[in-house]
Structures are given as C-alpha cells and as structure tokens.
C-alpha cells in the first residue's frame, strides 16, 4: 500500500474498491471501511460479484470478470473528456501522459459498457465521484491481479491515480491489500527469481557484488524461474530437485492435475511443514518446522509495516526452527553458514536491504516504537519509517504512465464450457485451511465447499439451492454444493478455494500473467451439471 490502513479509512472522502472483498478476506480492514462509510465517506465497488459492501456503495459496477483494464481506461476516458484530470500534477510529476491520452481515447463509456457489461451512465458518474473527491484511495486486491493481464491491471490503476493527482497525499494512493500475512515481507526478503532482498535486481552487477561480498560466494547473473514457471520446467526435466517451505501447491495452485504430474516427475522433493499436507505427502523427505507461536521474528503487513512475532510456547516433539533447518542444509551442502538468532538474521537483512536499514528486533521492541511497528522505507536506525510513499515527488522521480490496452482473458466461455468461474476467499477460512480447519467452531460455521450459481443459470440447468452438482473444466471435474443467488451475473459463477473436497483448483487455469506470472484464478471456463 502506498498509504496506511488508518489513513485510507479515516481520511478518505471516496473509496474506490476494485476486485476486493475486504469484509471477508481482510475483515478488520473491512470493519474500518464500514466505519468510514458511517462517517460519511462514499464507496465505489468494482466487482463482478455482489459483496457485502456493495449494498452500502454509491455505485456498484458489476463488471464482467477479466475486463478491469477496459473499465479503468473507461474511467480515465471520462476524466479526460470532462477535464477532471489534475493538470498541475501531470505536468510536474509525470511523464508519458500523451501516450496514455491517446490510448484511452478509444475507451468511450459506450464501448466500455459493452465490453464490461456495465451501465455507461454509472461509469461516468463513478469517474466523476472519484475524480472530484479531495481524498480518494484506490483499494484493490486479487480481483485485479489474478488475471493473465494482472500486472497491466495494476498499472492502469496507477495511471488512474496519477491522472487525478491522488498519490503521495493522505487518504489517497494506490493500495493493494495483500493476501497473506507476510506476502509483502516475502517479496521484500527476496524470495523472488529476479530480486535480492529490498528489490535489488539480480541482474544489477552492483547489487550482485554487494551480496557476493556479504555472503562470500559468487552468485548467478541470470534471473531464476518463477514458481509458476517451475512446474512446466519440472515436467520438462529442467528442475529435478525442489525444496518447498510451507507451501501446499497441491491445494492452492491452479490445475491440480498439472501440479501433481510436475511434482511426481521430480527426482527429489523436500517439504518443510507443520502438517502432512497434500504436497508433503508427495515429498521424499518431510521436515517438521515450527509455527508462528513458537518462534521469534517479524511479519511485514500490507501497509509495509514490520511488526514482531514472538515466541509464546515451546516446540512440540522434535520439530525445529525453520532457520535452523535451512542453516543445517546450507552447512551440509558446504556453505559455512553460522547459526544465527532471528534477531541476528534481521541485523543481516538490515545491513543488506536499504529499505530495512533501520530495522532491528531491539528497535521494534523499544519504547520508541511502542508496539506500532516500522513502515519501510526505514533506511537508518533513527528514521521513523514512511507511512505514505511518494510524498512530494514519486520514488522514481517522475511517475511514468504505462498505458495498457484491454485484452480478453486466456480462456473464455464457449459452448462446451459456457460459464465463467471465479475463485475467492470466505470470511471463516484461510487459504488451504491448514490452520483454520483445526478450530472446530470454524468448521461448524463453514464446513464445506460450494459454488455460487446465478439464479437464471440455475433455472436453466434445473439446479436448486443446496443441490450437489458436478462442475467441470478442461482440466478436471469436482462435486460441490450449489448456492443459487443473484450474487454473480448470469453466465458467471464463483467458488471459494479453501476446501480439500471439491477443491476448485482442479478446474482453474494455469494461464499466467505475462509479467508477474500470477495465474488467472479469476477467470476460467466451466460447466455445471446436475448429478
């Protein structure tokens, strides 16, 4: 997030919520958005599905899945057409405006209405509401990113914010609500084939030299492979040994058959886990790691806030801290990695990662920080952290407009598979339920998989609410329970991705975003049949 949660929810006049259902996926943020609405802030929901907040929204633009870019270009078209852009901001802080202007010129509200299945008048009104607001943040989530054009969707949102100068100010910004607790941290820490910690490029000789010096080894000058690209590489025999730390691709990755085949083709699979997950079952060696309640460390939340994780209880059985496991493997593979405490590891991180330069466990535990964490960039030990990015000027100097044209999703419905299926999260569960399904009350409240089917589609198929149905795609077949409503539009359905039984990822498409290589979880073609 460019801004903080409190800032977004306390300062904003209008909230533009795109492809995000915070009431369920980020409930505490959802609560704060509801507070903002009680305070009088207005809400624009852009989502193919009725979410809880759409009832309270001034506009709910129930667009067709996979058409975000056309929609955002349409908003920008209206803003330019009506002269609502921030001319001073564009002149002083951006470059590439002409290219954007030329590109969005084609996206008339009428054309966008046709692509996105929304009302042109509402699109215009929404554009005005967002553009004219003094303070208006864009909040977005996986509904924008989990598409084959996800990165371009994000860029388009950034274009939109730049166009109206809503960046670098309180109550504004472009704010991704990150999915998992430490997905921000995982990216910051360099768990990435292209970046060292702190987004230092592996292809940058200077950066490489720095890490080579610090680690005492020579490092490859070639970027690595994205996880989602690794699976095809396994099938091709390019990747032969894999270490998986705490991930369960057998549950969470798209096209489970494909994942299964890939993992089976490996020479050697090691999984470091808390539980014998579906993925761990396929491993040659399973190493018992420890949970957040048993270790010291830090998480970095969606607002770039580094906060402490503290040990509350001791480890069960012979399970070992994960850093101990990694260190032991490194040592046994011939690299002389000393055993470090988490605090010492953070010191090493700080020494190599400019944006974490001022972070240490001691500082996070101090009275100075007072339990408020530190928001990166925090380059030095006396730097207070950075709540809002791009204040005064953009981080890269001048912001660059990166116009993106609309291209349809990779797999579109056809006669055989006539429905678009989206996937998402529900309030009660977390991802593959590895944690949440150990709480009986949660299982009682939300025990089983289901698919939300549009009532008109259901009527045509003769499906009633609560009926068990068969859902199939080109990649697989599952059975699940139909929930019939008008939450989705005709021709569209929606499934939660948490459940082992009736796991939607047997159906999803492993088509990847061209740039960030995220799978297109949000659009695949399926058919539903009575049993």
């Amino acid at each position, binding site marked *: 997030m460019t801004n903080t949660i409190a800032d977004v929810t306390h300062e904003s006049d209008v909230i533009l919520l795109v492809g995000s259902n915070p009431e369920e996926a980020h409930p505490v943020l959802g609560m704060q958005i509801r507070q903002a609405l009680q305070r009088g802030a207005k809400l624009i929901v852009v989502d193919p599905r009725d979410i809880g907040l759409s009832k309270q929204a001034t506009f709910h633009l129930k667009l067709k899945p996979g058409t975000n870019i056309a929609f955002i270009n349409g908003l920008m078209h209206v803003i330019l057409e009506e002269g609502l852009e921030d001319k001073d901001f564009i002149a002083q802080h951006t470059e590439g405006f002409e290219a954007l202007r030329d590109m969005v010129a084609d996206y008339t509200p009428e054309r966008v209405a046709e692509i996105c299945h929304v009302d042109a008048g509402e699109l215009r009104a929404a554009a005005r509401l967002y553009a004219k607001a003094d303070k208006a943040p864009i909040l977005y989530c996986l509904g924008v990113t989990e598409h084959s054009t996800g990165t371009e969707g994000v860029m388009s949102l950034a274009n939109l914010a730049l166009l109206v100068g809503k960046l670098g100010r309180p109550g504004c910004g472009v704010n991704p609500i990150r999915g998992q607790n430490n997905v921000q941290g*995982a990216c910051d820490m360099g768990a990435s084939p292209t970046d060292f910690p702190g987004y230092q490029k592996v292809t940058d000789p200077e950066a490489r030299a720095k890490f080579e010096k610090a680690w005492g080894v020579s490092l490859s000058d*070639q970027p*690595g*492979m994205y996880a989602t690209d*690794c699976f095809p590489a396994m099938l091709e025999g390019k990747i032969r040994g894999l270490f998986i730390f705490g*991930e369960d691709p057998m549950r*969470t990755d798209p096209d489970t058959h494909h994942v299964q085949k890939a993992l089976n083709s490996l020479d050697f699979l090691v999984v470091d886990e808390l539980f014998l997950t579906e993925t761990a079952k396929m491993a040659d060696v399973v190493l018992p790691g420890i949970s957040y309640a048993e270790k010291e460390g830090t998480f970095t939340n969606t607002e770039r806030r580094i906060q402490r994780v503290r040990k509350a209880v001791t480890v069960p059985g012979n399970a070992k801290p994960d850093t101990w496991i990694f260190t032991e493997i*490194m040592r046994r593979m011939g690299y002389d990695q000393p055993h470090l405490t988490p605090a010492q590891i953070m010191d090493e991180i700080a020494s190599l990662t400019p944006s974490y330069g001022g972070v240490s466990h001691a500082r996070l535990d101090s009275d100075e920080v007072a339990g408020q964490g530190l928001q990166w960039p925090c380059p030095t030990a006396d730097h207070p952290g950075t709540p809002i990015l791009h204040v005064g000027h953009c981080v890269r100097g001048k912001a660059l407009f990166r116009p993106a044209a609309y291209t349809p999703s990779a797999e579109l419905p056809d006669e055989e598979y006539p429905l678009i299926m989206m996937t998402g999260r529900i309030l009660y569960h977390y991802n593959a339920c590895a*944690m949440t399904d150990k709480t009986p009350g949660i299982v009682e409240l939300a025990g089983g998989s289901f698919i939300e089917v549009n009532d008109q589609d259901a009527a045509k198929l003769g499906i009633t609410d609560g009926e068990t149905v068969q859902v199939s795609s080109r990649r697989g077949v599952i059975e699940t329970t139909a929930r019939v409503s008008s939450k989705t539009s005709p021709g569209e359905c929606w499934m939660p991705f948490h459940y082992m039984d009736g796991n939607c990822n047997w159906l999803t498409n492993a088509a990847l975003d061209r740039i960030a290589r995220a799978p297109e979880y949000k659009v695949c073609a399926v058919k539903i049949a009575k049993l």
Partner: protein
Amino acid sequence: MSLLHVTIDGIPVDVEKGTTILQAAEKVGIQIPTLCYLKGLMPDGSCRICTVEIQSRGRSKMDTACSAHCSDGDVIFTESESVVKARRGILDMLLSNHPTNCFTCPSNGECKLQDLCYQYGVEKTSCPGEMTNLPVDDSNPFFTYDPKLCILCHRCVNTCHKIVGCGAIDTMERGFESVISPAFGMPWRESNCESCGNCTAVCPTGALTSKRKKTFRPWQIQKKVRTTCPHCAVGCQYDLLVKDNKVVAVEAADGPSNRNTLCVKGRYGSFDFVHSDRRLTDPLIKDRSTGEFRKASWDEALDLVATKFKAIKQEHGNGALAGFACSRSTNEDIYMLQKMVRTCFGNHNTDNCARV
C-alpha cells in the same frame, strides 16, 4: 482557543472546550469508574456509574462524567458523599437483577460489576425483586450470551454497530424486559453476526463469554505474548494467552492497523492448529518402493537432503534445483531460505506464494 479552567478533586486542570469531565480527569490521573463507556465513541450514558458532582455557577448538580462537558470554573468531585451514594444506588439496582453466584461464573475475577461492588462495598441488593430469567443463547460456536448476567450497558451493541460496523445485535423489547439480541430474537448463529467476538471482548460481566473461558480462569494465565496475527495481511496485533505451555485464547491489542479489534479467524482460528495432534514432530523419509514414510533422525534426514541436492546439482547443473518460500512465515525464515537457494543451490530459482 482559550482554555477552560476546572478543578477536579482539588486538582486544577486546563482543558479545551468540548472536553468531557472523564477526559479531563484522565488528564490529571483521576480514574472515574465506567461500565458502558467505550473510548472513541459517543457516550452511551446508560449505566450512570461515572456520575460525578459538579459545582457550577453556585449550583451543585450530578451528571455523568462520560457525557458532561467541562465549563469554565467547574468544581468537580468524583468521590464525594453524594457521588458515592449515587454509585451505590446504581450498583444496588444492577445487583437486584444480577445473580451473585460468582463462583461458577466464567468472568469471576475479571468482572467490572464485581470490582465496583467490591470498591463501593455493595454486598447484596437492598431491593430484591423479579429477575430476568431468559434462556442462554448458546448457538454461536465461539461464545454464549446469558441475559441473566447482562447489565444492558450496550458496549456489545455499540461495538457491533459503530466499530465492527456489522449491526448484528441491538436491544430488543422495552423497560425491564430489555435484552440484547439479533434481529427478531433469532438465535445468534442464524443472524448476520460474523462471529468476530469483539462484543465478548468488551462485555464487562459474564453475559457475553467466550466458550474458551471454560478451559482457564483469568489468574491461571501465566503470560500474555504480544504478537502478529498469522492470517491476512492487515497485521492485527494481539496477545496469546498461555497456560501450561498452551495457547488458550487470544486478546486483541491496540495495534496500529487493528485498534483492539479482531476477526473470527484471528480471535478463534489462529492457535488451535499450534497444538493440533496432527502436527509433524519428527523428520520423515519416504521409502520410494512402498511410498510409506518412516520417522528419521535429523542427522539422517538432513544428510539425505544435502547429499541428494548436491548430486542433482552435480549431474544436472546449477539450474536443476529450486526452493519455494512460504509467504506465511517470518521475514527471517524467508531471508534464510532465499539465501540457501542463492548460496547453495547456485541459482535464483526461489519464489514465494504471493501469486497463489
């Protein structure tokens, strides 16, 4: 703006216009007891326990400190004879409709009504009469509502409406029959309640109680460990309550992104898994011929991993290995994993589950 000068229990204090007496008292470290008051919200003013005596322009009056604004020259008494009398009267009334079988109450020892009765020496009610006798709502898997223990302070209602923004519950019926309930008196479980439990956290008595409380008493908690919720990326701060090396409950903290609130996953679904009997406790090595796992020592398992990885690297080159990190784990873990991949696997084939 010019400041207002008031005196509270003999201590002079300058406040801005619009400051309540409660806020002014807090400024000078004077604690006025409250039951229904929730910081940051409009005062509910229903319990009346924060009543104070105010001498203003030659007249003496009683008012509630949570709602009354200071005016210049006010002389305020927070524990005068008439204040104590009023408070005793309120406790007397509340106690006339509140069972005193505290031994079996889950909130024994952390009940604000109990504390205040102790503080003001109210042992039992002086005006016994009919008591609320409505059934307990046990339908929610995580908490119960017992109308008999409810003092109608509306903290739960105000929390649900104004902080959580859910509005699942409200006061039903009128007068003495008043009770907290989801719409139309439906069971909690069937309402639009999101089971976040923020209502239970603010209940001053045992009326709204987490079912977890059955497993411990407040004084058995050996430590409270401040940490970050492991679910979504909001990064809520909370305390893990530990009894006998086991996390038994979670208490919300005033974290920058959660401000004392939590969701159902954070409050109830974030620690059972830690103590699950399905946890892995030993390294496992698979017999490729049978497909069965067997327990192994760390040395055996780690040596096997190192040997195999080295062999693959030697045979197929540096690019043949990869390591995925978990975006649910700590920064320190992830840093070490990518370091392992880069230094030992000899490539950059590392990633995390950000995309999936």
